[in-house]
């Protein structure tokens, strides 16, 4: 499917906002410049957080055939950087600015078999794919993992749509996902589409490599917003620029450096391209690599980090990282 990424901004009117779980709201929008939506698409939404213009990416969960109505689903978690609260505050009749659909995670039609794997709110990125695969009568399984059923959106709808093709793994019901077993059962011509927290993604990527499966058949989308550790406030120092900044738990190191006046290079801002890489000169703490740019080997070395997503953590005092920028 053609990946189209020309950013066209438009207005959108909220026509529905309702709670799906205590922490997830479904938000239906009527965009002013509707276009047909392909599976794997997301929109970027312009929001104001703490007086600053900012943007967030949300997958399109479902849409009408003509794209005149698109639905997002937004999780508000303690780790959210303020965008979710704004989104949760939207009510019917409110207006927002958003892009036309962007596609970084295109579904390819024509694979022999598919596994769609969603962890938690990651279901928003793959549920439209499942609908399309059902429509073209592909062989697919939708695997949906969550901690507890009360926190998993759309379970009933997915069961109705996909029947036996839906496999649920619910932590507190004693049916957690065994990643090694799942990946071990995958055959050569299967494509796996994955969206979920970084722990799940790392586990699947590791199992995929160990199973000797074809790397290109593992496809995933990351919005670069989850890590192995809870975000913590830390200090970043840039001696060459004579700069020091405090990175709060809800901002990124890149944002903090920009706010402190550093001229930073970046592109994706979600841990994929590696353009925001900084050299780590000194480290008081440990790096929580949240990117998908570095290999496992590179992450074990601690000389570099992608400052758009990755963070620094310690057990006790405030962690400090001293860096050199490009």
């Amino acid at each position, binding site marked *: 499917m053609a990946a189209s990424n020309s950013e066209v901004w438009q207005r959108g009117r909220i026509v529905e906002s309702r709670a799906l779980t205590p922490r997830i709201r479904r938000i239906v929008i009527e965009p002013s410049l509707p276009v047909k939506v392909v599976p794997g698409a997301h929109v970027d939404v312009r929001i104001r957080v703490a007086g600053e213009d900012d943007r967030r990416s949300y997958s399109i969960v479902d849409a009408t055939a003509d794209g005149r109505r698109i639905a997002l689903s937004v999780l508000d978690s303690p780790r959210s950087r303020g965008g979710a609260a704004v989104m949760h505050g939207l009510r019917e009749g409110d207006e927002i600015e958003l892009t036309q659909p962007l596609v970084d*995670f*295109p579904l390819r039609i*024509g694979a022999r078999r598919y596994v769609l794997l969603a962890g938690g709110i990651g279901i928003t990125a793959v549920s439209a794919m499942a609908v*399309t695969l059902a429509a073209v009568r592909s062989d697919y399984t939708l695997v949906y993992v969550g901690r507890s059923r009360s926190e998993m959106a759309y379970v009933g709808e997915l069961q109705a749509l996909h029947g036996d093709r839906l496999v649920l793994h619910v932590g507190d019901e004693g049916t957690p996902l065994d990643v090694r077993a799942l990946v071990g059962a995958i055959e050569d011509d299967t494509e796996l589409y994955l969206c979920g927290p970084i722990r799940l993604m790392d586990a699947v990527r590791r199992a995929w490599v160990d199973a000797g499966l074809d790397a290109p058949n593992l496809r995933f989308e990351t919005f670069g917003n989850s890590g192995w550790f809870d975000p913590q406030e830390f200090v970043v120092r840039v001696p060459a620029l004579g700069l020091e900044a405090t990175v709060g738990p809800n901002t990124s190191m890149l944002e903090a450096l920009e706010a402190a006046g550093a001229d930073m290079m970046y592109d994706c801002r979600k841990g994929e391209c590696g353009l925001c890489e900084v050299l780590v000169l000194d480290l008081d703490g440990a790096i929580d690599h949240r990117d998908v740019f570095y290999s496992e080997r590179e992450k074990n070395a601690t000389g570099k980090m992608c400052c758009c997503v990755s963070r620094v953590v310690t057990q006790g005092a405030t962690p400090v990282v001293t860096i050199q920028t490009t």
Partner: protein
Amino acid sequence: MKDSTVNKVLDYPRNAWYVAAWDHEVNRNILSRTVAGRPLAIYRTEDGQPVALADACWHRLAPLSMGKLVGRDGIQCPYHGIRYNSAGRCISMPAQETINPSATVPSFPVVERFRFVWVWVGDPTLAEPSLVPDMSQMDAAGWTGDGLTIEVACNYQLVLDNLMDLTHEEFLHGSSIGQEELSESDFVTSHTDTTVTVERWMLDIAPPPFWLKNMRDRFPGFEGNVDRWQIIHFEAPSTICIDVGVAKAGTGAPQGDRSQGVNGYVMNTITPERDRSCHYFWSFQRNYRLESQLITTQLRDGVSRVFKEDEDMLIAQQAAIDANPDYEFYSLNIDSGGMWVRRLIERRLEAEGLLPAAPVAAIAS
């Protein structure tokens, strides 16, 4: 919207199978060809599967067709060496240890059928192989022949117009297949949602040079009059197979007995390239003297000469259209086949949102 007659440069549906190449053109070299406005890099995997990728690298859009094939099914960008598999998924990024998760180029649905490689550049979820137009005479048992491709600098619809009305043979192809009975004889037009048929019979006429030669290939020394037929089968959006032939006059061909004649099929499928250019794939198939490679070559070369006359006219016509933007088309009764073709195409364009909806016809008061 502009109505059928005055829409002089017609857009093309995207949700359709178009021929991208002959079977023999798709091999372990990379072919660069634009289909329905989409530049493609076309090749065959080591397993023989045809592949059509967007001809623009994910990274900086360098044309992949300038790259090289690697491994069993891959292609390497000529610029910074990113490699993709036949699904269009990046398989290696030379300067890093991981693969960017968004690194893909579109891989378009492809079907190889009737000696052609067909590609679908529209919505891939609609790309049903059963929608490939019927060109079965291309490789069915009992038929043989060969053809060529013409790159024509005109809107594809002008070629369809040309093939849907063969009265032009009398004027444009007077030395080979033209004869005055063509414009004098009656024809019958019919249509369905996806097809248009124009049928014309000329009874008890002297065969023109092309058909006399064909009759003598099958019936050495043949003299006399023939019954001649042209049955034009259009299948949307742009395939036209023309059942043509002559039989000894009065031997029952109009009633279905073609045993005393020669039968050919002029196979034409027109792939829009851009708005004013198209790839015109054609072949002349026959169902007699299958063993003769000489006849195959003679027919291909003979038809090729005839089609050169069409090509020259089509280019001149497109130039005149562009030079006279304020002049409109008018229609004749002989255009009924071509006008049905336009209407079927315009309905598809409308369904794809490529044509504004037709105004509701004014009700006469």
